[in-house]
């Protein structure tokens, strides 16, 4: 396979996954913003949504204050934000068109339909004015559905060859990055058991984290008790059964990199690096993580994940 084709497939999957994550954090921030002021909310939900999306710096260059209207506009519509939802779908579709023949009809249709739907919604864009909640909810739904549809059609219709492996690899690298960034922004709220914990606002913050990775129900299935911050960290880092946890992402990354290595009969630094990260995650306990410091652990993980992205690019995506 041409390096260019692999590159397009990899990034197509990354953009589709990223669009879904952005839709979820906008959704979670809307929920938090809807809490009555009596809960003591400080109104920082949009700042943390922007930094989970990795868009805070760019936002501050363009806007001088953070409010819900500006943040929604920036995260959803703004073309000056390289990872706004509109841009993710746009770039995803551009990548898809470049490798149209490597995709199945269903995959192409899902991303193209999502793109067309978004075009329709761009008509409602009103920078500077507040958005209609119902229309926003519809739009978020459509973005989530587009990602689900794309992911599902890839899973159900794609031939299991290197195209599929690269597509999956992109998805899991992006997903690991998203979960890690979400944890990094919220780490100060996920302290170990020994730390003092806050009141009802914290509870809503924690459930917002869970909702952002659609793990609210999963949490209760796994732990069968009230929402505890250190258990959220455990769920999102070390639980293999949780599909968005760091370890689950790396289990898959190691598996698909191995499949690529087997298909090509050669392996290299990307495989070794991914296996090392996976091994370290599977040997770690939550106590180890808190001993190192959650923030330090996540920072090191994000670096490792970026290195993996670079290793994959070096090994497969650049000709």
């Amino acid at each position, binding site marked *: 396979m041409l390096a260019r084709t692999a590159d397009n497939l990899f990034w197509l999957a990354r953009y589709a996954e990223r669009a879904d994550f952005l839709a979820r954090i906008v959704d979670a921030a809307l929920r938090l913003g809807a809490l009555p002021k009596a809960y003591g909310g400080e109104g920082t939900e949009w700042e943390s949504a922007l930094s989970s999306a990795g868009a805070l710096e760019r936002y501050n260059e363009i806007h001088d204050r953070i409010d819900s209207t500006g943040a929604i506009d920036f995260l959803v519509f703004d073309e000056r934000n390289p990872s706004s939802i509109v841009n993710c779908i746009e770039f995803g579709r551009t990548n898809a068109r470049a490798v149209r023949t490597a995709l199945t009809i269903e995959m192409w249709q899902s991303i193209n339909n999502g793109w067309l739907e978004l075009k329709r919604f761009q008509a409602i864009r009103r920078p500077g004015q507040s958005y209609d909640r119902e229309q926003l909810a519809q739009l978020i739904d459509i973005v989530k559905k587009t990602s689900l549809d794309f992911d599902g059609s890839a899973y159900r219709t794609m031939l299991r060859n290197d195209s599929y492996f690269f597509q999956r690899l992109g998805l899991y690298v992006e997903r690991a990055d998203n979960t890690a960034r979400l944890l990094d922004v919220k780490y100060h709220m996920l302290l170990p058991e020994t730390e003092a914990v806050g009141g009802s606002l914290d509870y809503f913050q924690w459930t917002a984290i869970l909702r952002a990775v659609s793990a609210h129900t999963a949490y209760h299935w796994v732990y069968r008790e009230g929402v505890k911050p250190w258990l959220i960290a455990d769920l999102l880092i070390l639980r293999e059964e949780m599909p968005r946890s760091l370890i689950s992402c790396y289990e898959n990354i*190691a598996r698909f990199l*191995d499949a690529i*290595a*087997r298909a090509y*009969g*050669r*392996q*290299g*630094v990307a495989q070794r690096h991914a*296996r*090392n990260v*996976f*091994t*370290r995650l*599977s*040997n770690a306990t939550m106590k180890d993580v808190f001993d190192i410091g959650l923030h330090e652990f996540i920072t090191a993980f994000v670096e490792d994940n970026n290195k993996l992205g670079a290793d994959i690019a070096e*090994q497969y995506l650049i000709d």
Partner: protein
Amino acid sequence: MRLTIRHETIFLYDPPAKAIVQTLRMTPRSHDGQHIFNWRVDIDSDCRLDAGEDAFRNIVHTFSVGPVERLSVLVEGEVEAFDTAGVLRGTLERFPAELFLRDTDLTIADEAIREFARKTIVGSKTDLDRLHQLMDAVHDGVKLSSEPRRADASAADAFALGSGHAQDMAHIFIASARHLNIPARFTTGYLHLPAADAVQSSHSWAEAYVQDLGWVAFDPSLGQCPHDGHVRVAVGLDELGAMPLRTASRSGASQSTSVNVNIRQSQAQWQS
């Protein structure tokens, strides 16, 4: 080296055993020197297989069955091992290394072993040198025995006899190292030798702790540090602590056990 391992143990009981309890330490963990692609434990009787870990964080499975005439315990999986010149990184360590200075019944250094250890290391300056000399000396000084192994043979017994199996050589190595105040432990696993006629088998070797370097593996029966044909499964203070399979059975008088280990190299891969 990418290895496919299949290890089947079959127990025959006549008359049938009323009840059998087994503890398996047969599941390897990944670390920087090896990667487990997949691994499974398969018991051919209906039973509940409980997974857990022991004090040294080896993965342990326990189950009980009965009554049975024939029981087969199969573990199989695919592993990639790398040559790290014996140096172990990324392993799970729960205790300070000094814990592994502790003597056990099988690894007591008697006068003969103590003298052997002292004589062997004359002239070497670092612990790493001493350990390498010790490994060579055990390899040269103890003949590989072809007799079936006595289950409770200690380091001192094998040393007095001058011959033994891989387990005995590891015990002698461990007893000597501990006498020299170097923490050492027993390791079980699998060994794949490229030669076509080589016996593919479970294997035992030892690990010793070197300041500033960490745990380093030594294979006294092979006379070299473990390479990319070694798959590390479990560790313990001595053979009993790391034994792959321990059985207790009620009644079931005459029993015979057959072990069938098959390790082969999977398709070759280029490393870049």
